[in-house]
């Protein structure tokens, strides 16, 4: 199991979802992906994409300008 980072800042939805999807394709089951976004829409879209594709959102941190979503690959 390894931890990876994805910078999706300044991208508007659905690009953060697409980048997350494409990144997760290259990861192994149980890997952790930390996605950093600035589009508030990602707060809904990335977890929705994870739910329907069998991944688990472990943590979400929101501050004034950035959102960090931590995902466990195939964690559902």
């Amino acid at each position: 199991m390894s931890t990876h980072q994805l910078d999706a800042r300044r991208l508007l939805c659905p690009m953060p979802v697409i980048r997350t999807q494409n990144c997760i394709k290259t990861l192994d089951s149980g890997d952790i992906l930390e996605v950093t976004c600035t589009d508030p829409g990602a707060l809904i879209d990335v977890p929705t994409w994870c739910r329907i594709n069998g991944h688990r959102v472990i943590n979400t941190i929101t501050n004034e300008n950035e959102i960090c979503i931590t995902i466990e690959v195939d964690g559902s």
Partner: protein
Amino acid sequence: MLAAQVMLEQGIHVEGINFFTGFCVEGHTHAIRKQDKAKPKRNNALWTAERLGIKLHIIDVIEEYKDIVINPKHGYGAHINPCLDCKGFMVKKAREWMEENDFDFIITGEVIGQRPMSQRKDTMPVIARESGALDRLLRPLCAQNLAPTLPEQEGWVDRERLYGFSGRSRKPQIALAQEFGISDFAQPAGGCCFLTDPAYSTKLQDLWQQRGEKTYEIDDIMLLKVGRHLRPRPHFKLIIGREDGENRFLEGYRRQFTTLQASSHNGPLVLLDGHYNEDDLQLAARIVARYSQGRDANAVDIDITHHDKDATQTLSVPPMSNNDIPREWFV
């Protein structure tokens, strides 16, 4: 959504594909504009997939899609909407995905006569042929009006449990949705693509005209969605933020564009796109002053930051009056 549900009712395994062209209306506009902050920012494709309990694959086709917008074989609709080429392209991409992922056929929610360009009895076979999907393209909502496709001939799908909808009315679809217990659904297609929007199409045509060629990058088409666009001279235009959300979005382009903003009064961030000389800067500054809170002042200080020189100059200018801004400057 409905076509997928019809398949699910027959026990067929369905996965969704959503193509991102860069011209989608919903996500970006919501993300940029402050006035839309109160609305839910759900992505309708994702929401629909979750509601149906199916997987969804979102595919970035921005680069490949350029050729569809720039050189549509079948031409444009009322604006810069290449609907027939677009549909053929998307079904072709879906066919490629189907082959790569060992799926058997493609379904779409098309209905004969629903749309004036891509959903006519004479154009629907064009999509099947040009996409290469041929008889592996099934339209469950109007299948009974069309020749049986491979899934029907092979008995993978029961043709009797498909539908024969036609025409522009959505009433039969809404009634069927109610039968399935679907009460909340995404806005029907048509208003979801910027290329069908007259104001957006005008801006894109203006961009092509000034460049002397039909090309674009993703930043170009994003910026056409944002702000008030004024072209006071053929060689430059101004993109003026209309509210805080747009100003924040335009901030991200400071390194790519020369920017103007009032420093003596509150005012929008403005990008200057094109070439300019000192006279042009004076003119631009007076326009920017007009859109600041100093519009009634004798003079407004405008900071001009040149992206290529990493330097800022300040011009003190009288704001242009509303009457001095010709209507034809507005793109």
